[in-house]
């Protein structure tokens, strides 16, 4: 037992230096760093929205409705005279929260199912995999739409819907990683020493599957943000007056001919946030997978 723990300790130390290497590779990747900077800007904008926003995002002013961008309203005003910049700043809170929380929900459900399914195999594996096959039959945003139809509209339900819709991705990913890891010698060694299954999965297998999970999660936050904005655009997501970007864009479309800033800027906000996560994900993938570094 002590020996295995010592070996594990050694593996952990090795992992530490590996992570340091990954970080070094990441720092050298210019695009990934650009993505990081974009995300930090959004994060700061979300945290300090009350300080940074020039106006109250909910304050209506009918006298100044549909104004084009000016010095007073840098990104113009909407149909109720609300400041678009302030609403976009507050909106980054909603989008970041949806991205992070729905990915956490997906991980929380998908990770244990995938790990158990891969580790034990057998009937449990067969059953869960066939169930996941059914969920995967609903392409892209459709599964999230189905779940929102059942639960009803609103930000919380969007998080749950997008979270559940991402469960298949994590289950498959974790299952695959666990299948590969469990054949390794150190797992056989741990098993023969009588270490419990839960302990093996938690402390010996999962830490070695972290790389792909982190990469996938980074990409999936981007997808979650796109899906949530799509639901908002369809009228199935956050409801007015919430300053959710997709919802803002959908309503702003009615004023497309006279006030295109109502569609342009919320869309750009979504684009940059998604781009940030994608660039970071690309960088993490390249840093974690030495084979993909060559062909950049």
């Amino acid at each position: 037992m002590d020996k295995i723990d010592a070996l594990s300790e050694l593996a952990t130390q090795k992992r530490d230096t590996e992570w340091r290497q990954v970080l070094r590779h990441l720092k050298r990747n210019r695009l990934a760093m650009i993505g990081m900077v974009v995300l930090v800007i959004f994060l700061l904008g979300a945290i300090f929205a009350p300080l940074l926003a020039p106006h109250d995002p909910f304050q209506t002013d009918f006298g100044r409705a549909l104004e084009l961008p000016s010095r007073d309203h840098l990104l113009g005003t909407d149909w109720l005279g609300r400041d678009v910049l302030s609403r976009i700043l507050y909106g980054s809170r909603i989008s970041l929260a949806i991205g992070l929380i729905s990915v956490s929900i997906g991980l929380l459900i998908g990770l244990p199912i995938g790990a158990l399914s891969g580790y034990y195999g057998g009937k449990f594996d067969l059953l869960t995999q066939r169930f996941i096959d059914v969920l995967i039959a609903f392409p892209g945003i459709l599964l999230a739409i189905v779940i929102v139809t059942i639960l009803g509209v609103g930000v919380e339900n969007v998080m749950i819907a997008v979270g559940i819709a991402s469960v298949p991705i994590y289950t498959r990913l974790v299952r695959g990683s666990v299948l590969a890891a469990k054949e390794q010698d150190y797992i056989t060694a741990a098993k023969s020493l009588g270490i419990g299954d839960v302990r093996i999965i938690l402390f010996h297998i999962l830490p070695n599957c972290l790389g792909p999970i982190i990469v996938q999660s980074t990409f999936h936050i981007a997808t979650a943000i796109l899906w949530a904005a799509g639901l908002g655009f369809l009228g199935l997501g956050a409801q007015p007056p919430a300053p959710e970007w997709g919802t803002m864009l959908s309503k702003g479309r009615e004023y497309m001919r006279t006030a295109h800033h109502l569609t342009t800027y919320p869309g750009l906000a979504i684009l940059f946030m998604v781009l940030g996560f994608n660039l970071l994900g690309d960088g993490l993938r390249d840093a974690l997978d030495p084979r993909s570094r060559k062909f950049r």
Partner: protein
Amino acid sequence: MYGYVIRRLLLAVPVLIGVSILVFAMVRFIPGDPARAIAGVHASPEFIEQVRREMLLDEPLHIQYYVYMTNLLRGNLGHSTFTRRPVSVELLERFPNTVMLTLAAMFVAIIVGLSAGIISATKRYSVFDNASMLVALVGVAAPVFWLGVMFQLLFSVQLGWLPSGGMGTARHIILPALTLGLATAALIARITRSSMLEVLRQDYITTARSKGLVERVVIYKHALKNAMIPVVTVIGLQFGTLLGGAVLTETVFSWPGIGRLMVDSILSRDYPVVQGAVLMIAVLFVLINLIVDVIYAFLDPRISYGTKGGE
């Protein structure tokens, strides 16, 4: 080989049954009284009772499912609570439009993505390469509905070249297909580029060049064929993304397809139509995957037909 095709067909059956169970369960999961939800907010008590009887909501679930499934196999998907027309008729009217849009978008994606990817790979680090890879990054990140609106602004409102929505002439499909296809084009361009670069480093390409073959022949005859394998995989996988994206694109361009019908029906709580539309998209997706897998097996003989599932 044929064994693989048959096995793959058989594997689709439980998935289709599962899809039907999920769609069947969908309205029954809605909190509150499903009969009231289906009949609509302003329905009379008599009508709610009628819905309850029609859907056998007082019977046990397995009986309900049995009846639902028997009806389904006869092509009976119930009636729209809004128009009172059969759901199957509503769906079949719109089905060709969604298929047309998806195929047109895939056509755009393949043409644009492949050519950009090949040129980028052969002229690596050139201005074209850098520019198209930047466009590809943005294309993947841009929300499809925002792209649609921006295209409308530019090509319909500002320039007046193309109609901003609806269906009718061939010109109506250009903007929706471009909108829906762009993200997939971006992805195909990126995959084609990296796959080409990988193939171009192989020894047999060096051999072909040292034989004195013209560069054009080396690239289009020798390299492209092998570089295509991962690209074909991505194209197959992207059909799902396109079908999902069609829901949004159809809404932006008032394109009378199944996606838009579904969203309208969700908003008006016309659940029989929602169920039918969801079922139809999912079944279509399962069938497309089946076809792609079979085509892929023909293209790449290395696929292991012997193992189950081919994972």
